[in-house]
């Protein structure tokens, strides 16, 4: 099966869906080209090249470059969605959600509910998350937990190219607003991706590896860091961890997490976002609520600290949960005896 990067998988998903359904449009900053130079509109295809080639194939009525105005992009997308198109809007950096959150949080997320189920809002917001490029505090955050807390939004946080394609197609075909979070350091990560279109249902976690000793839950880039830590623990300490990638934080596959913890009795959650009112706290609360009797050790969360993302590379490196910190948490939880 062909190996594709996350970038290629996303591009292929968009292209195949736009061929299938003429109602799908793309709207955002630089999605057509990126250079904004006449004759070179197709040069880049978004700041990270995900939409490359689409303007040439589908034209400017379906691949719409906008001024730098996130509120207009999201407002236009929400309006287009509720009146019959299926927009894929791009919010270049998720950090910018602040200026357009009314359109997302108070409009798109509420339409179906407030119109008594008569309105559908089939829009996707593709957006970049993640630290690690020294992009500083305003371009490095991972605020998926904020989106996750909003009823009416679905939130996708993929960790590999296979999931990225299937989840993006699922997001496009979904009749509710979906926030699709892409980690900015993972676009070149490759995996086997079928050429044919396919969908992955929301709320179905991926079990990355099996193990009976400790349950580890992680998202996006942290799945890979956790896997690295677990590899080391398996060979050095003989600890076998079950690694769960929920893939979507809303809806959340509670059953897979609970079933695993009921077997292992030990849980470590890895989350690149800040720790307060976060994905990690959400999963910890879930397990404390519904699998308390199964727990043999305190739940440990490995997260960023409660600070802005530092610009200095050495501090940023400390900020991001590392395989070493993950391994230490797993060891501690594994060794814990009541």
């Amino acid at each position, binding site marked *: 099966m062909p190996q594709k990067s996350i970038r290629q998988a996303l591009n292929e998903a968009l292209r195949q869906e736009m061929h299938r359904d003429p109602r799908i449009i793309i709207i955002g900053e630089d999605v057509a080209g990126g250079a904004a130079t006449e004759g070179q509109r197709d040069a880049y295809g978004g700041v990270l090249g995900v939409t490359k080639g689409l303007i040439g194939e589908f034209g400017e009525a379906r691949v719409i470059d906008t001024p730098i105005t996130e509120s207009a992009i999201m407002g236009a997308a929400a309006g287009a969605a509720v009146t019959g198109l299926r927009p894929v809007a791009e919010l270049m950096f998720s950090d910018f959600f602040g200026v357009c959150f009314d359109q997302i949080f108070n409009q798109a997320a509420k339409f179906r509910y407030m119109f008594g189920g008569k309105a559908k809002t089939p829009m996707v917001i593709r957006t970049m998350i993640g630290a690690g490029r020294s992009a500083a505090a305003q371009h490095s955050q991972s605020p998926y937990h904020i989106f996750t807390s909003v009823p009416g939004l679905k939130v996708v946080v993929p960790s590999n190219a296979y999931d990225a394609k299937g989840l993006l197609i699922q997001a496009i075909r979904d009749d509710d607003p979906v926030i699709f979070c892409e980690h900015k350091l993972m676009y070149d990560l490759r995996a086997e991706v*079928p050429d*044919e279109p396919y969908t992955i*249902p929301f709320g179905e976690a991926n079990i990355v590896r099996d193990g009976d000793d400790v349950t580890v839950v992680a998202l996006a880039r942290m799945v890979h860091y956790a896997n690295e830590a677990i590899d080391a623990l398996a060979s050095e300490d003989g600890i076998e961890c079950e690694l769960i990638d929920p893939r979507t934080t809303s809806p959340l596959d509670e059953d897979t997490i609970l079933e695993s913890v009921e077997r292992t009795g030990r849980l470590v959650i890895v989350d690149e976002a800040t720790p307060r009112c976060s994905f990690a706290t959400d999963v910890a609360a879930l397990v404390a609520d519904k699998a308390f009797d199964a727990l043999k050790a305190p739940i440990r969360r490995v997260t960023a600290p409660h600070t802005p993302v530092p610009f200095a590379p050495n501090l940023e490196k400390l900020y991001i949960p590392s395989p070493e910190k993950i391994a230490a948490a797993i060891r501690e939880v594994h060794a814990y005896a009541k």
Partner: protein
Amino acid sequence: MSEITAITMPKWGLTMTEGKVLGWLKHEGDSFAAGEELLEIETTKITNVFEASEGGILRRIVAQAGATLPIGALLAIAAASEVRDAEIDAFVAGFVAPEPTADTAAEDTARAPHDIDAGGKRLRILDLGAGEATPIIFAHGFGADLNAWMFNQPAFAETRRAIALDLPGHGGSTKQLDKAVDAESFAADLDRALAALAIDKAHLVGHSMGGAIALVFAQWQPDRVASLSLIAPAALGPEINADFINGFVRAQRRREMQEVLALLVHDPALVSRAMVEDVLRYKRLDGVQAALEALAAEWFPNGVQRLGLAASLAGLNMPLQVIWGRDDRIIPVAHAEALAGGVPVHILDAAGHLPHMEKSGEVNRLLARLIAP
């Protein structure tokens, strides 16, 4: 020096890179015959028993239960009793597992499945082996794909061309089905595939729905079928487990699929999470759901098999056999028992609906005996 035989980690299926020794079924010092089960090996896809390819004495177990080792790694030593321990020590110390090279990478590419144009239809096949001997063709069952033959196809590729194909609607083949999805339609696809592969005559092996397709092909063009092996085939009686068919069509999630797939086998431990994931990945492809629904409605309307061809088996004039697992929970073994006397029937103990995977050694021997008596 007397002969020392290295028993090494096998490669099962296209994606296997390493395996885990689950446990030894023989002890050091035990002698064993060809075909006897030596140990159990778990891969990410499947757990299976490793059978001795020739007889010997198990002199030394090198890989203990629990060890995870790459393909080609030394598992054990077989040698005659006169071989001294010191010689075995020296052999173990000097053993070097073959490193993956550019050659093996190229070999892997050659061993990968590819698409063919079968009269305008895109079909994926895995085409292994070569030689003058009549080729052998494997046709899988409902919802499966060419990987179903991972324990069988390589054994026959050593002596002849051995081809497993994905039927339309399955695996990597086109998901666009003809309007007719009955056995005749699939037999016509098989005919197109053989034409595209320039194969005039072949040994046919079909499992379940693929068995019924092979049978219909053999009735249609008997001169092109060198032998016919039907493994738990459809179309030999009305009963079929509707819970399996409906459950397989309906299941979208891991847990549902795990329960459904467990019905296929005698030992549910055979169904690994990776196997479930592979089936889910297939089911997620656009067009698969519609294809499976159409097939289920045509072949098994209201939970009963539409096609009944048992009476026609006796009229076939090519070498023929029917193989069934005694604990088949999808199509009852009674269909095989009802044939007794008319055609050669082999019922395998401790096997469910997938005897070619669960009892691959026995099935391979039965196939080999029919193909080259």
